[in-house]
């Protein structure tokens, strides 16, 4: 509710009136008399009340929200407004020359063009008519100035008739978007530039929705879909609008038929040209389309992948075999060398052992000699023979180790008794071991 104006003045502030924040709460509203009554749920103000009550808004909150909603509505209304500056050249147009006029521009709809709805056209027409009606011109002192008015009427006639409008839209070059030049493409924006072109071309499609051009991130499927659609494009574009005028019936019939044929051929030709144009457009576009290259590479990469794998496996196997062979050869060589050294070592050892045995034997014999062949004084040859024969016998019957042990025992001994004791012990051991027969070596024992 608006504020009521009260003409009566407010009293002046009494002297000495003081209060915190200039406000003094004194009383309370009478509670008893306040009755619960039922509001009639009728009318816009009740609805506002209900809205506040149900959403628990205060007055100012609700005012604000409502104001916002109202403001939005105004904006929506404004959206369809047609306000384009009118070109002075356009206003001078001759209505007879209607074929060449831009009907959308005449109605001030050039930013909508084929997208203008029927309602927009009607509204635009109304607005233009109000402005350019010949009666208004006459009132301004310019009689018979109805040229532009006729243009408006013609434009509306064409645009409000779906068939005629399609014919006009077919040849509406203003709505065309030129394909991007190479220079433009160098700067990038490939997808943006081409998508504008196809968006404009899409207006001729009989099928909807028309797939979008997409961008760098489009999937392979989308891109294929797009090119399939466009290479099989079904267009309603026709070129009747550019027909040459067919003479009236009352003129020469042959002439008329000739013209009709000529027009039909021209239409066909233009249609074919248009199809070629579109095809070239697509070729150009796909030639520069990085996505297609990428997809092709990806596809070939997938195909080659197997082969690569197999080759790699073979290579690996050959390498393995080679390594194995090398290892084997090396091992064999090593073994051979080892055997050789072993053999040499054995031979040396044998020689050494032989030498040792010889040496030990010499010790043994030497010990006997040292013991003077166990004889007192000079030993007889016979004694020497028998003793040496027994020594030979013992030596023959014991292995080199025992000879070495015996030699070690005997080595250093010079006293005959001791030497004899050792020999006796040895012979007895050999007899006990069964290596010597009882009685053999008795010269050493005795």
């Amino acid at each position: 509710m608006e504020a009521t104006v009260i003409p009566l003045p407010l009293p002046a502030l009494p002297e000495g009136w003081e209060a915190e924040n200039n406000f003094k709460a004194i009383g309370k509203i009478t509670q008893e008399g306040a009755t619960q009554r039922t509001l009639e749920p009728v009318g816009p103000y009740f609805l506002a009340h209900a809205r506040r009550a149900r959403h628990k808004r205060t007055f100012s909150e609700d005012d604000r929200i409502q104001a916002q909603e109202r403001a939005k509505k105004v904006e929506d209304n404004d959206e369809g407004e047609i306000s384009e500056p009118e070109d002075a050249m356009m206003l001078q147009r001759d209505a007879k020359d209607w074929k060449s006029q831009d009907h959308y521009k005449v109605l001030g709809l050039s930013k909508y063009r084929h997208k203008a709805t029927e309602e927009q056209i009607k509204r635009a027409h109304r607005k233009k008519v109000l402005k350019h009606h010949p009666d208004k011109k006459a009132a301004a002192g310019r009689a018979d100035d109805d040229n532009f008015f006729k243009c408006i009427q013609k434009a509306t006639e064409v645009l409000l008739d779906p068939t005629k409008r399609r014919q006009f839209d077919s040849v509406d070059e203003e709505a065309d978007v030129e394909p991007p030049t190479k220079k433009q493409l160098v700067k990038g924006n490939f997808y943006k530039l081409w998508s504008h072109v196809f968006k404009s071309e899409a207006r001729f499609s009989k099928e909807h929705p028309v797939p979008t051009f997409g961008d760098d991130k489009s999937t392979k499927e989308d891109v294929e879909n797009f090119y399939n659609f466009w290479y099989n494009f079904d267009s309603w574009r026709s070129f009747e609008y550019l027909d040459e005028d067919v003479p009236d019936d009352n003129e020469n019939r042959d002439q008329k038929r000739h013209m009709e044929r000529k027009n039909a051929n021209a239409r066909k030709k233009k249609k074919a040209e248009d199809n070629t144009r579109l095809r070239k457009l697509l070729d150009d576009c796909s030639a520069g389309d990085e996505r297609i290259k990428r997809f092709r590479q990806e596809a070939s990469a997938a195909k080659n992948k197997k082969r690569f794998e197999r080759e790699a496996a073979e290579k690996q196997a050959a390498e393995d075999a080679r390594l194995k062979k090398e290892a084997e050869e090396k091992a064999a060589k090593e073994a051979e060398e080892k055997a050789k050294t072993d053999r040499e070592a054995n031979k040396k050892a044998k020689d050494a052992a032989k030498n040792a045995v010889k040496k030990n034997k010499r010790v043994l014999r030497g010990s006997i000699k040292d013991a003077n062949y166990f004889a007192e004084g000079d030993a007889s040859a016979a004694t020497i023979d028998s003793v040496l024969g027994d020594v030979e016998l013992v030596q023959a019957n014991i292995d080199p180790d025992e000879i070495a042990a015996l030699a070690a025992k005997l080595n250093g001994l010079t006293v005959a008794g001791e030497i004899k004791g050792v020999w006796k012990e040895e012979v007895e051991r050999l007899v006990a071991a069964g290596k010597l027969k009882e009685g053999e070596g008795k010269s050493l024992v005795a």
Partner: protein
Amino acid sequence: MSDSGAKSGPEPSERTTIGITFGNSNSSIAYLVDDKPEVIANEDGDRQIPTILSYVDGEEYYGQQAKNFLVRNPQNTVAYFRDFLGKEFKAIDPTHNHASSHPQESGETVSFTIKDKAGEEEAASTLAVSEVATRYLRRLVSAATEYLGKKVTSAVITIPTNFNDKQKAALVAAAAAADLEVLQLISEPVAAVLAYDARPEAKIEDKVIVVAELGGTRSDVAVVASRGGMYTVLATVHDYEFAGVALDKVLMDHFAKDFMKKNSGAADPRENARNLAKLRLEAEATKRALSLGANASFSVESLADGIDFASTINRLRYETIARAVFEGLNRLVESAVKKAGLDVLDVDEVILSGGTSHTPRIAANLGNIFPQKTRILAPATDVTAINPSELQARGAALQASLIQDYEAEDIDQSTHAAVTTVPHVANAIGVISLNEAGEEVFVPVVQPETAVPARRTVHVSAPNGGDVLIKVVEGNTHIKVTKPEPKVKEDESKAAKVEDADDSDEDDSDFSDEEEEEEKREKVWKIGSTLAEAALKGVKKGGKVEVSITVGSDLSVIVTAREVGGKGGVRGTLTSA
């Protein structure tokens, strides 16, 4: 209060909504054209469609055609059935059905026995009143559908304020059976108020309105407090004596006597049912003619005994013989104001609604009851008045367009008692200002009986500027009675009323009235208890102070005061507890 029990209605976006006044005597349908409500004429061209159904050889007639069959085919004609909806037989008043099909008891409800099928041997069928209502509503909807060219799916229907829940449910069910979604049932007086408030020139202000609904068979008066566009019914009275048919009766008696006087020996046309029906039909036509012109003719062929009768009557004569009815209506209105605890001086507007409101004398009589400043909205007293027969249908159509975008559930919730039942402040809340004599007077900001939460703003002048005191007080009215003192001019300044202009008007009327009134009655505001004081300092000379009082739903008060166009200001809160 809307369609509980009815099947779920159509989607809000698919609705075609109309407003329906389903009256006991006449019905109307209205539709919103370019935000302006318009009452639709049916196939016969009637905007007030008699609530009558008639069956002749299995053919169904409704409206004016059916009404004409009251003469020739009364037993197969159902009239005045609306008030029987949802009522038991023992609770109904069948007086008006005497000349048509008689209501019968059938279980919990009322029914009529009608031959509604063709053929001699076809037995008469018994139709429950709900079925009759369904058939009638179906005809109304089809008339609207034909007019609009779109299938009408939903409607707002007006009902009298004294319809109980059972009657409402019966009406909703009858509408649902006629394939009509009832968005909401709204009370008739409020529909009438809404029709006036929705006019573009209407200003939303706090006012008390008396809505007198003068129909064919009943008169209802409601006192409505209109507070910021929200309506609260303060009191209602209902009367079944003083209504349109009572005026018909007066005319019928008059012409019957005239007929017998002119044709000595002729039978009393009121003795024979058929003659009575003719008499009634013509009397009603004459009554309507008298509302428009000063003279009206009355002519019935073969009124009784084959004698044709023609006569005329002038308005003065009519008003004389119908005086008892007119006075009854006056008393009815006065009793309603009294019942609301108000005085006629409190009433700002009187809205006359219903067909009988066309009678000029009724409007003139009400003008005499109420003070001069009270606007009587009837065709006879106010040229801008809306046709009283169309008010309710217009209101219903307006309401229908307001709520048609809401879901049925939303409407239910918004009309729920939790939302509609709110406290109303008992006393006015206002500020103190000074009158010409320098005395403190009360200026109401929030009127009594304002539903809370409420926010009101006033601009009070501060011609001297400087520091001003804003004193917020409660106020009360009382009726000040002054004995007239001839010679001494009424002291205007004594009138502590806000509207000086209105005051002087009143004074003029007092003097110009032919009958010298014995006393002068005035409405005077009395200053009650002080609620708060606030100071606004340094107001510019000749400036204005905006005082805004917001009463919360818990009766707490927020007072803000600031200079118009200025910054800052004072703000304070009074708690309710």
